């Protein structure tokens, strides 16, 4: 194919959806986030038209202010020089002008002007609930990968011992660390803060934190998970635990009963159970997979992940008799985008009526 | 200590009936070249082999073997002194030396691991056409002193003998045999094969540890060939076993 032809085609159809990487530019109305995700799908002609229409609508719904605040690298950030502004993260002085060094949204807090990045790695804040994976056991501490620039540290002293008694940690406890968490274990914890040496520390001082078993871990871009009051969700109707880690690690697994006193005995019976290969009940497993696929679809479309939206998507697939695996097919992607566009339009109407 | 293992002779009821495609020999052009001459000779030889096969006669192979007969095997452990275990095997004209070094601590070990590593290195001596091996935890050095093709199964069998000699824990002695249309091919025979199949087998556990296959095969052929190889492997394993026992007896005396 000659270049000439290639150009013609591109002119006709800006997005070669069927095979090319297709970039979505979405703007969420609530928080004004511009999200860009690449989506790889084999769409047919109708699906392509429908998806374009849905995305167009989503874009139209976004408030204009959001796109104005968006900057890319080397963009000038308009400031009033007489205000003695403070140049924060992601900004640089160039010939008296403030320019952005990051792609993101300009935030202004009093005199401080900074750029909040959208597609960067996770940036921990104190109190965040995160899901991480143990990568190393060091003296008195575990090191965890949490999708941050450095490994997080969970001190043996920062977590409740399995026996639930508050006491000094002994040398024996230190030797038995591997019985609590071993390498590759998935652990849920809370961000405690940065220590003086610059390392990030975690804590797990409650029975709700700890090892996660019998389920799957999904990784999504961290900006899709917003900080909320609740990150642990026990979905009773499915008998499933859903943990939306602020770092973009999402756990979907079989529900585990947490009770302070019986924790010890329970952990001990679990070992032989695993050896007997008693698997997750089939119904629960179907729910886990359906929820997981809902999360995969939503994150590929670049929608903010909330527990309501995840459940709604999973329910929608179940009620229209879509097989779990077919949720990853083109048709369901398009349906999900259309549903979200409609939902946001409805939301806006209600807001306007009020 | 130089014990001569008897060659396993395998005979089975069924024989390979193989259809050969018509030769596509667009016989060399009129010009003379030594290469073309050699090619011509090879072709003649192939034709002869094919004729034999087509007649389904139990014709003698180039080295006077019958169809399902393996080459004469000579096995011996302790071929080299520096290694923790070693073995020498001679299958017809193929001669293999395998040395095992280790076990020792892995230098590459960066992470906690519950599995070891077996590093193999095979080298062909320059005069034959040699094998050298390296094991992170176990080092296996294999030197092929003299080559006829079809040597991989022999290396595998010889290596398991060497590992046993080194006192390494194993599930079973692994033996290996390959089959083309005839069992245990020499390099000439391999040159015109339509397909080959190699089986490595742990006879006492009845488990196949490796199976490779090339060429076009029907189901029945695969089943037959695998069974034939498994049978040959069991017999070869018995020989290895006997040899190891005898050496052990000699050592204890």
């Amino acid at each position, binding site marked *: 194919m000659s270049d000439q032809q290639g150009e013609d085609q591109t002119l006709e159809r800006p997005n070669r959806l069927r095979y090319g990487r297709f970039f979505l530019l979405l703007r969420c109305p609530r928080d004004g986030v511009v999200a860009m995700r690449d989506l790889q799908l084999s769409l047919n002609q109708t699906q392509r038209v429908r998806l374009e229409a849905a995305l167009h609508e989503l874009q139209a719904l976004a408030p204009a202010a959001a796109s104005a605040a968006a900057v890319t690298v080397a963009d000038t950030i308009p400031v009033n020089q007489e205000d003695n502004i403070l140049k924060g993260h992601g900004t640089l002085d160039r010939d008296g002008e403030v320019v952005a060094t990051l792609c993101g949204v300009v935030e202004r807090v009093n005199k401080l002007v900074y750029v909040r990045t959208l597609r960067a790695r996770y940036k921990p804040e104190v109190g965040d609930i995160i899901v991480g994976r143990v990568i190393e056991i060091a003296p008195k501490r575990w090191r965890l990968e949490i999708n941050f620039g450095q490994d997080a540290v969970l001190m043996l002293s920062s977590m409740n011992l399995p026996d639930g008694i508050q006491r000094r940690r002994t040398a024996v406890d230190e030797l038995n660390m591997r019985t609590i968490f071993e390498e590759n274990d998935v652990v849920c914890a809370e961000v405690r803060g940065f220590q003086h040496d610059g390392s990030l520390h975690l804590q797990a001082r409650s029975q709700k934190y700890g090892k996660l*078993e019998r389920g799957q871990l999904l990784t999504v871009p961290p900006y899709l998970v917003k900080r909320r009051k609740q990150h642990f969700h026990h979905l009773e109707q499915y008998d499933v635990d859903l943990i939306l880690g602020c770092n973009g690690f999402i756990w979907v697994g079989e529900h585990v009963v947490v009770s302070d006193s019986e924790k010890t005995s329970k952990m001990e019976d679990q070992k032989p159970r695993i050896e007997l290969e008693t698997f997750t009940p089939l119904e629960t497993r179907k729910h886990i997979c359906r929820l997981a696929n809902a999360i995969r679809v939503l994150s590929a479309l670049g929608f903010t992940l909330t527990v309501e939206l995840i459940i709604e998507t999973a329910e929608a697939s179940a009620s229209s008799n879509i097989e779990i695996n077919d949720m990853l097919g083109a048709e369901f992607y398009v349906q999900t985008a259309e549903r979200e566009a409609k939902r946001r339009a409805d939301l806006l109407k209600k807001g306007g009526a009020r | 200590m130089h014990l001569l293992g008897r060659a396993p002779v395998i005979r089975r009821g069924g024989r390979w009936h193989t259809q050969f495609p018509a030769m596509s020999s667009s016989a060399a052009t009129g010009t003379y070249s030594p290469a073309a001459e050699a090619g011509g000779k090879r072709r003649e030889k192939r034709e002869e082999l094919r004729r034999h096969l087509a007649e389904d006669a139990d014709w003698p192979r180039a080295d006077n073997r019958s169809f399902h007969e393996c080459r004469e095997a000579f096995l011996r452990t302790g071929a080299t002194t520096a290694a923790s275990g070693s073995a020498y095997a001679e299958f017809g004209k193929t001669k293999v030396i395998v040395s095992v070094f280790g076990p020792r601590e892995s230098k590459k070990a960066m992470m906690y691991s519950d599995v070891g590593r077996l590093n193999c290195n095979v080298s062909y001596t320059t005069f034959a056409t040699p094998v050298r091996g390296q094991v992170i935890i176990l080092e296996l050095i294999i030197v092929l002193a003299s080559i006829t093709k079809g040597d991989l199964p022999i290396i595998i069998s010889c290596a398991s003998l060497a590992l046993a000699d080194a006192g390494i824990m194993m599930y079973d002695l692994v033996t290996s045999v390959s089959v083309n249309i005839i069992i245990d091919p020499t390099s000439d025979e391999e040159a015109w094969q*339509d397909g080959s199949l190699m089986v490595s087998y742990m006879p006492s556990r009845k488990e196949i540890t490796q199976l490779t296959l090339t060429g*076009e*095969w029907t*189901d029945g052929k695969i089943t037959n060939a695998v069974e034939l190889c498994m049978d040959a492997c069991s017999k070869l394993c018995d020989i290895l076993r006997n040899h190891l026992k005898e050496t052990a007896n000699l050592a204890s005396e």
Partner: protein
Amino acid sequence: MVGLSEGEKHFIRGGIAQDIRTDGRKRLQFRALSVETGVIPQANGSARVRLGGTEVIASVKAELGKPSILHPDKGKVNIFVDCSPTAEPTFEGRGSEELSAELSVALQRCLLGGKSGAGAAIDLSSLIVVDGKVCWDLYIDGLVISSDGNLLDALAAAIKVALSDTGIPKVTVSVSTASDEPEVDVSDEEFLQFDTSSVPVIITLTKVGRQYIVDATSEEESQMSSAVSVSVNRHGHVCGLTKRGGAGLDPTVIFDMISVAKHVSQQFITLLDSEIAAAQAEE
């Protein structure tokens, strides 16, 4: 390399035993396949194949060469695989050497057939231009761009698609009386298509627990005891087979796996053919 906790491993094994894998697939179900042809303009034929999170490119280049002395009536085919560091940081430098070599050998075994050419993907005698003097050398290169398991099947599929996309320039041979060397004139307008009907696909059955699955993700592959890759052509004939993984297999299990692979392969070939047709129509 994927590190998984005991709980996750148990969950994966359970899913395979219960016939619902982590993404909802059944044991013998493939991930979404997408195919694109003509991705590398410099090559005679090329294809990109995406199988879920696994993405590979195959390119076919044809160069004029001299046939080997052993096979004066045949062309030559070389298959190489490279794993790009874009797929995994560990592939940087020499990190992917072992894997690349393993994949190359497996592909050669499964696609090049026996020494006589039986079961080969390409009829080598069709690559001959002048007997004993000039032939086409095919360089088939596979590149792993993104790796999420089942690389071998994806590479074999990409090679099949790339070959169906390949056009070999038409050549006219004129023997001049002065010298013995034939003169070869390569056309840059007329191309000959390959007959790819006999090119096999590779179906890898990965054994996890007592069951085996097709198109394993890298997480599933970390749980395998062994895997058998069977290459099967359109006629249902097995053209190559390799086994990976430390665990031994019972012979009856292997025979069973071969027959399952044959069954699955026919569906996969049909799917691949329709994707090839769609991709070529798109182009």
